[in-house]
């Protein structure tokens, strides 16, 4: 297979973006009425649906603080290459689920819901790179929608290094190259790192570059997500006002 260039001489990537540009983000909050919190997030062509149920009662006797359970699965039609025939315990899915669980355990105020559990279900409907980041962002928004108390929002972005350029928010073509890639999740207001997932080997300077670029990407994404959450909340408040005025 001939290697196509990932970055054209003009400095544009395969999908026409500049190296330090994230993809277009669309999010729809609260679309599933039966779930406590839900979010349908699109980062470019990657579409992820996250639902949060909870806090609900825990059957076994667990010590005091609440726990989180997370399940991540990719739809069979989500990607064109690997065929997943209904196997829930795919190794990648289990690994991503457990890393998301650990990330959110650090940010949820678990003392406020003792003897309870929060269930997080993530379904990837279309995969075009950056599913881990999209999943984390979608879960954050779904948690906000469900009203589960958190210390901070967790925003995530990926970054990679190819052809001597650091790029932000990788798509599928850039992920398959298997160059140095970093998926970073930060706490929105303090800027500290919540999760860092690193693939492949690279020099330390490149690693520092990638962290800086990913953090910048996270801040860009935070702007979009924050404004979406604000709009949604204002809409809810406005509808409540219109009901009480009657």
């Amino acid at each position, binding site marked *: 297979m001939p290697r196509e260039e990932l970055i054209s001489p003009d400095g544009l990537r395969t999908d026409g973006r500049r190296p330090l540009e994230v993809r277009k983000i669309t999010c729809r909050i609260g679309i599933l*009425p*039966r779930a406590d919190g*839900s979010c349908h997030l699109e980062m470019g062509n990657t579409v992820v649906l996250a639902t949060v149920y909870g806090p609900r009662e825990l059957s076994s006797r667990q010590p005091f603080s609440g726990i989180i359970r997370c*399940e991540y*699965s990719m739809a069979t039609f989500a990607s064109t290459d690997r065929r997943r025939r209904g196997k829930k315990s795919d190794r990648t899915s289990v690994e991503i689920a457990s890393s998301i669980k650990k990330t959110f355990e650090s940010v949820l105020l678990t003392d406020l819901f003792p003897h309870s559990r929060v269930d997080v279900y993530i*379904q990837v409907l279309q*995969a075009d790179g950056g599913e881990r980041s999209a999943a984390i962002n979608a879960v954050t928004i779904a948690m906000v929608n469900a009203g589960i108390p958190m210390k901070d929002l967790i925003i995530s972005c990926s970054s990679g290094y190819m052809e001597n350029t650091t790029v932000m928010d990788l798509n599928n073509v850039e992920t398959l190259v298997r160059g140095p890639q970093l998926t970073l999740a930060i706490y929105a207001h303090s800027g500290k790192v919540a999760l860092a997932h690193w693939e492949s080997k690279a020099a330390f300077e490149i690693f520092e570059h990638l962290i800086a670029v990913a953090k910048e990407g996270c801040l860009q994404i935070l702007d979009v997500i924050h404004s979406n959450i604000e709009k949604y909340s204002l809409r809810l408040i406005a509808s409540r006002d219109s009901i009480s005025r009657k």
Partner: protein
Amino acid sequence: MQHSLGWDIWNILQPKELYKGFLQRGIRPNGRKLSEYRKIHLRKGPLVTTVDGSASASIGQTVALVGIQPKVVEWKEINKGPVKSIVGNFCSVQVEFPAICHRDMRSGRTSEEALLVKESLENVLEEILVGDAFCIVADKFYWYLQITAYCISFDGNAMETFLLALYGALLDLKLPVLHPNSSGDRLVIDQSQPKVALLMKKVEDWPWVIPVGIFSDSGSEHYFVLDLSEEEENNVSCIVCVWNNQAGNKVALSKLKFGSLSERILQQVLPLVKAHTEEMIARLQHD
């Protein structure tokens, strides 16, 4: 002093009695009439990059998403089985009720509902697909459709929602035009021609299913309810799926939940079923 318990307490203690009280007045607890459907919405083509045909359908709060991925297979010489069935050879259906759809459903366990829906969808596909439409190069290359259906949110009446989504996805499906290359062992996509839809039987002939819930109380009174929500599915004594097509000349029945049934009830149900089928097929054609 007489206390009257709130209706939500009655709903926990004696849901069937409460439900019967409403049915006797010809209305449901949330104000819907007995044969009135919830808001039906069909959206074709929500997934664009990885699937060639998709649709998401919702009836009330039940949402189903169907994606069709076509693949090319080389025909093996052996015909499996005496009858050349469409489903085994040219398409496969996978139905899942993942954990996101319902509070109490645990993932990893194929529920009965999923199996029933899968069977019904396979039967429907046998009816509406034409075997010759799948042939690219005779006796060598054929299309194979991988149909995956997910329930995103469940609130009763999954059967109709899935059927509507499947029909929408089939209507949305666009296959690329393929030509064999010069040596004849590979296929090449013809980029100049636009994608074509799959050849199928015409929409007016497509069957439709309507699950009817029959609430019978001590054998004397019967009420039939269309478009059951999840709570109602637990309350009615029998659910019958009535299959028919727009012309009304082919009718079939299948039971989802066992209970008593009589011909008189069916006669009353059929006109409603016919009216609804016409409405749904008309909607499919115009959307």
